């Protein structure tokens, strides 16, 4: 755990600060009262399903949409209604939006040319940006002569050459195939460390967000539900949606009995910490890899459990996923594929168990 989570957001001027930002398109609320601070130098991911408002949020930072309400500051300067050409930010668009009638070199030089940077300086900076993304030798190509990965690099170079204070990336890896995407994840992360610029990227891919981001903001239906490091979000989701959206999870319906006890839907009281009022409907979030599995009579004394029938076993090679059916819930248990150990057969009664620190209680 290197620098994750120790950004002192409030002590320095935030790179991007949204205060009570709302965006409406007619009667549709695309972004609903969002507060967000992104620190200088941070690699921040806006994560959510399509239509959740993450792209609209990004476009408001870029200046391609203006907020209906609220304040948007970029390094302390109010920028809510500035046109995009007057903001110190640049964008890597989803399909890269390279100018098809220009060469790679002209694409990269475009921003500098528009800013009337001196010719000799443009040449140097363009070369620098092109070598930063390792595209030397392709300067005279046009975008249709490039592969998807190369286009992505041109888009990056075209934005970074302007030395923006914030780089915005709209699903930057969405158009690439899986292998290339995984490669580029690492490259983007390394690139961000190298240039030290604040990166804000939008993605619907939770794995991408977990792998790349210093912090993640999870959005749904226009609301920003939770902001935190990947570990915080994965281990302490604030509600059912976040728990479900980030990684695989089992959610057991329950209600709060006291601040350290919840009542599962089957009527059993189990320990579960929460600061929600008594009676609140909640879900106990149990990650498949944190659940244990034992014969019904062999559950260790320090663990809670529920008993169900083993419905199926999915063989993944490095792991096995057991699906256990109860009359009120269906649970998945993931076990590393180790020799020996408990290997129940389909149809047998099994106990799915957990320790207190393996679960989190989230709002339903």
């Amino acid at each position, binding site marked *: 755990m290197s620098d994750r989570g120790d950004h002192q957001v409030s002590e320095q001027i935030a790179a991007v600060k949204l205060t009570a930002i709302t965006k409406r398109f007619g009667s549709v609320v695309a972004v609903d009262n969002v507060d967000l601070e992104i620190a200088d130098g941070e690699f921040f991911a806006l994560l959510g399903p399509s239509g959740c408002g993450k792209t609209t949020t990004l476009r408001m930072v870029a200046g391609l949409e203006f907020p209906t309400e609220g304040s948007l500051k970029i390094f302390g300067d109010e920028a809510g209604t500035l046109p995009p050409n007057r903001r110190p930010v640049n964008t890597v668009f989803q399909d890269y939006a390279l100018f098809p009638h220009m060469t790679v070199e002209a694409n990269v030089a475009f*921003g500098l040319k528009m800013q009337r940077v001196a010719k000799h300086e443009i040449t140097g900076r363009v070369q620098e940006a092109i070598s930063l993304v390792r595209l030397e030798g392709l300067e005279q190509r046009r975008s249709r002569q490039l592969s998807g990965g190369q286009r992505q690099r041109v888009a990056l170079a075209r934005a970074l050459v302007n030395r923006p204070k914030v780089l915005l990336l709209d699903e930057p890896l969405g158009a690439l195939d899986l292998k290339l995407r995984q490669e580029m994840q690492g490259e983007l992360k390394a690139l961000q460390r190298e240039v030290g610029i604040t990166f804000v990227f939008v993605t619907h891919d939770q794995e991408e967000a977990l792998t790349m981001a210093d912090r993640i903001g999870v959005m749904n239906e226009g609301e920003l539900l939770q902001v935190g490091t990947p570990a915080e979000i994965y281990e302490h989701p604030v509600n059912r949606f976040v728990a479900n959206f980030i990684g695989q999870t089992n959610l057991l319906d329950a209600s709060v009995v006291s601040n350290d006890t919840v009542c599962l839907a089957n009527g059993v009281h189990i320990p579960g910490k929460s600061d929600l009022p008594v009676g609140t409907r909640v879900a106990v979030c149990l990650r498949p890899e944190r659940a244990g599995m034992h014969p019904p009579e062999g559950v260790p004394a320090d663990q809670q459990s529920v008993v169900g029938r083993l419905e199926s076993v999915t063989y993944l090679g490095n792991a096995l996923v057991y699906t256990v059916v109860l009359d009120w819930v269906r649970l998945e248990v993931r076990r590393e594929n180790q020799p020996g150990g408990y290997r129940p057969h389909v149809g047998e009664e099994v106990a799915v168990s957990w320790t207190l620190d393996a679960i989190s209680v989230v709002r339903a």
Partner: protein
Amino acid sequence: MSSTVQPRGTTKIALTAHSWLVYLFFFAPIFVLIVFSFSDDNNVGRWGGFTLEWYQDFVEHNQLQNAVWVSVRVALLSTVISVVLGTLAALALERFKFRGRKVFDALLYLPIIIPDVTMAVMMLLFFSEFFDLLDAWFGLDLQKGLGSITISHIAFNISFVSVVVRARLAGMSEVLEEAALDLYATRWKTFRYVTFPQIVPGVAGGALLALTLSLDDVVITQFAAGPGATTLPVFVFGLIRRGVTPLINATSVLMLAASVILVALSLAFQQFSGRGGRPSLRAAREAVSAPPKTNTQIKEGINQ
């Protein structure tokens, strides 16, 4: 080549014959026209030996020459203006959302749909009323002529230009313009460096179409023309009534040639735009067959 969808036997013969007949029907009149424009006989349809006399007549005929220059001036002026206005209209309809957009959109097609004669009568009425009004207000004595012809040609050309330009704009992603704005371009520079280069084939195609339509128009021009000026097609139309000589043939051949050249240019431009990057594709293939330096090449280099 002998796939099952290819016609065979008698079907094939019949279809081939049919195609040739259609083309014969198209081109026989043109061929006859061209042949008889070289006929040394005052009668339009009688062959009297080869001569270039009618072409000489065309060059020396003062009124004809006047009409040619009116035509050229009207065509150029109306093309330039309608290209600017038509492109602006296309941009507005394709890129902006505004109140009454759909109505404006529908109205823009009107000049394409309504019959020429109707448009011509409209123009006639419009100019007589409008000129009366201006004469009364400003004490002028306006006459129909070059100005009124040009205006009427602009009126129908805008529609054609905007349809052609819109087709091009629709195929161009708006994100490109957003990208330009994001890269510090002003609205004008975005248009100048990104939008315009993308739609230039459409604009050029629209311009050539407008030029052709303006040069060819008879009906509307006839109603909008005055004693002061008349265009070539209208003048030729008048010649017919005064007795026909092969001068008309020669004039028609020249007009035909001009139109064909313009249409060919227009098609060439649209072809160029449609394919987008044939030459570049070739370049890409060449580039792929000779990549900058692959890993294996580098390794071989080390081994040597």
